[in-house]
């Protein structure tokens, strides 16, 4: 009943707050998007001032008047001090680390001041998350802050609104701003060791693949981004010939296909977990692997970029559309 009564007001306020909420990859905090309000400690401070004022009146003591006036003046100035401990900061999204379900997704933010003021004890935290991180800006006007968010399910993880707040210098007032940063991390399925796919076997020393391991060196190619670190021609690089990658004969023949149909007895999530596990395993052992899912397939290859592509496909497989945004 009451809620229904207040609903229009709440809506208006929500819309107003949302309209003042900055969005984007980089957001500057200024008067328009900073809120400020006394803290509990601030109200207590005001009470102390009033008690002193009462004592001053009752004892007709001009020096106690002076003390209470000084504290009141400091309180008024603190509104400005607190505001200036936030305004002029620019928060930018730098990158989101990728992780597996159950791990902490890492979000790197960059905070930068557009002036020479010192910023002390500013707190950054995503809405609904615990912890958060304090930072300060002194002589360096820029700082990298890393926040962690628990990854609960696979797909894209978009953290809640970023709350940036401060009670510095005296804890009497809290200045804060909500920032919607355009940043999301990919959460891969949780790896789970399942049985080997039928198409390949495990040899004695745990290596995967067919017997034929053609690793005859055939020549050098120009470096392409994504090439495994193991294939970079370090000797040539040290000689100053630039980045080159080594080519091996016979790699074409060792293809492993991680195929959706291979684990037909498992549920969707379990299948994805097992495929994640084997993809990592193949990558670890430099075995070329491809992915075959209904509607999509990725040709066999190795390298961190390839792994990321494979795992991303697994992460997003039949994930809700909203998570893809």
């Amino acid at each position: 009943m009451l809620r229904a009564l207040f609903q229009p007001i709440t809506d208006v306020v929500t819309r107003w707050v949302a309209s003042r909420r900055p969005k984007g990859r980089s957001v500057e905090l200024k008067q328009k998007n900073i809120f400020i309000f006394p803290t509990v400690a601030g109200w207590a401070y005001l009470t102390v001032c009033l008690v002193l004022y009462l004592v001053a009146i009752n004892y007709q003591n001009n020096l106690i008047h002076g003390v209470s006036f000084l504290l009141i003046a400091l309180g008024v100035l603190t509104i400005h001090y607190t505001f200036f401990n936030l305004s002029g900061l620019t928060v930018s999204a730098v990158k989101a680390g990728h992780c597996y379900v159950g791990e902490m997704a890492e979000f790197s933010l960059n905070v930068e001041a557009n002036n020479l003021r010192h910023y002390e004890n500013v707190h950054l935290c995503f809405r609904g998350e615990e912890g958060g991180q304090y930072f300060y800006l002194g002589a360096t006007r820029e700082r990298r802050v890393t926040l962690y968010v628990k990854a609960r399910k696979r797909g894209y993880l978009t953290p809640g609104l970023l709350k940036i707040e401060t009670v510095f210098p005296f804890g009497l007032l809290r200045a804060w701003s909500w920032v919607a940063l355009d940043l999301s991390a990919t959460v891969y399925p949780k790896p789970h060791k399942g049985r080997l796919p039928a198409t390949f076997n495990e040899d004695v020393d745990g290596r995967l693949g067919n017997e034929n391991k053609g690793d005859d060196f055939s020549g050098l190619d120009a470096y392409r981004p994504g090439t495994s670190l193991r294939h970079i021609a370090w000797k040539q690089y040290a000689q100053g010939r630039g980045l080159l990658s080594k080519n091996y004969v016979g790699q074409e023949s060792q293809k492993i296909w991680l195929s959706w149909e291979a684990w037909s007895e498992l549920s969707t999530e379990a299948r994805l977990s097992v495929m994640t596990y084997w993809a990592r395993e193949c990558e670890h052992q430099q075995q070329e692997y491809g992915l075959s899912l209904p509607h999509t397939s990725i040709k066999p290859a190795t390298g961190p970029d390839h792994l990321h592509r494979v795992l991303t496909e697994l992460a997003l497989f039949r994930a809700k559309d909203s998570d893809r945004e």
Partner: protein
Amino acid sequence: MNDLQLTRTALLWQLLSVVVALLPHAFHLPNWITFVVLLCIAWRLMVYLGRWSLPSKWVKTGLVLAAGVGVLASYKQGGGISITVALLVVGFGLKVIELYHRRDALIVLYVAYLVVATSFLFSQSVGAAVYALFALIIVTTALMSTNISRETRFTYPLKRSVLMLIPAFPLMVVLFIAMPRFGPLWEVGLDKSAAKTGLSDTMTPGDITRLTRSAEVAFRVSFSGSVPDQTQLYWRAIVLNDFDGRGWLNDGKPLPKFTPTKRAEPERLFRYELILEASQQHYVPVLDYPVSWPRELNLHRDMTLSSGTKVVNREQYPFTSGVVNNLDVERELDDFERTLYLPAGNEKAKQLARRWWAETETPDGFIAKIQQYYHQGFHYSLTPPPLGDESVSDFLLNTKTGFCGHFASATAVLLRAVGIPARIVTGYQGGEWNPYENYFLVRQYDAHAWVEAWFPEKGWVRLDPTAWVAPSRVEAPADETLSTDRAFLQDSALSAWNISNNKWIMQVRHRIEALNYGWHRWVLNYHHQQQGLLERLLGGVSPFKLALFLLLPFSVVIAITVALSLNARKVAPLNPVDKLIVRLSTHFAKEGLERQTGETVSDYCDRLARHRPDDASHFMQISAGYERIRHGQGNDPELVVQLRQAVVRCTNARGGLFARLCWWG
């Protein structure tokens, strides 16, 4: 955020602020309280150093109970503000032990603010104010340190809090000047166990000696306009009408309030302000004939003024007085009888008076006769010999040595003996002129007693028999006259200082006293100056003008603070690391390889490496070095030097003297 743990720096600031807030109270608090608080601080310090552990819950509860009982026991008979302050101090002392979270610190610091401010209930000297200012800075710094969650240098919060306090002072001054002062909302009183010395409403010669010895300040007076002569400064405080054969007092009910009907306006009017020290008495000394006085004071028929309540604080009164030798006011019948009455005894003195009256037969002649008699073998002394039962006769005929009280008492008895109404007036005479602030300082040793006799045509005429015997007592300040008397000031620790004739010391003393006077007048008693000052400043006080006067400086100071903050908005100079990257970019701009906007340093180095494979290793080094400096904590000088060398190698690939110079550039 309130359950954040305090940093080590913050903890040290908390402990320091507790010590600083406690110190001024240590003088009046029972010693055990100071001891307990210091013990708590020491305990917390030991925990800080990792030697001891925090006390258990039971120990803490026990301490709180014991301290509470202790306070109640120590202040059994007292009460009021002293016990409140004691409880506050004990409370925040004990809280120190469990100082761990930010919440604990806030309680301690807010109480510390109260404790610092209440120290002004016990001392209001300039020194106390300077100390309190220092203490407020420390407490404010401690408050700031609780809001810094990283370890900083110890002085860092001090530096920042002082910078933040500075703009608060002009605002405080504005509030102090313009905020209206209200009267007390309810009755309070400081419990003072020891009554201060002052005039009392009885006088048996001998009482005044005690007063004469005290160099304590009785009151200060500043005249606006002309200043009367030293010899005319008779500050009337109490009139004593009844003589009991030995001493003088006022019998019967207190005098009613009185409005003079016969207003003979005296010719010589003086306007002055009198700052009366707390005397714990009702009387208010005033020059001869008050013409205007504050409404809270009552005028009595004998032209003395009294305050409705005892003067327990330093008070300031504006007066206008006529300086006259006779008070021309009507006499009431009961006065007539009282001021003529003499009890039995002192017959020799009475006989003497009657004999003189027979010889002269006129009041003037009679008074001249007394004066003449005093010139023969009478001495002024602060240590007179004791008098017998017939004290007046004894004094007049045997000892012939005494101070103002003796002379006044004897003269009044002589007058009454021949039918001239006479009464004793006690008060102060003279004062010490301070040339720097233009005011008179009247000390307790200026206390004086004299006689008023009534004559039909003139009214009450002042007679000062002491002046006949020792004219210098009236013409010069008391300290000059009396400084050779060994009894004078023997109670005062400052006596050597006070009676020094050294010119330089006198000058310094006057300066200090002038500062004190300004302090009393403009700070401690500002509420008496406020109306006048505001009227002079604003040309008439109205709520609108007052609001404007309050708001204008507020907005100016805040505007300045904001402007200073915004001024820091100018683009910061590049730090040396960024300068090196700019240098790299300008160098390669010649080859069309300058850094694009938004391109990170590592991307840029990669690009350069691709275009200049020969120098690829240098670029990698620059890229790695830059990242290490930028995302590490602060600039490691060694890393910066390495980065500089790498940049120099790339930009001056051919080497040479210039390159080598640049290494150090």
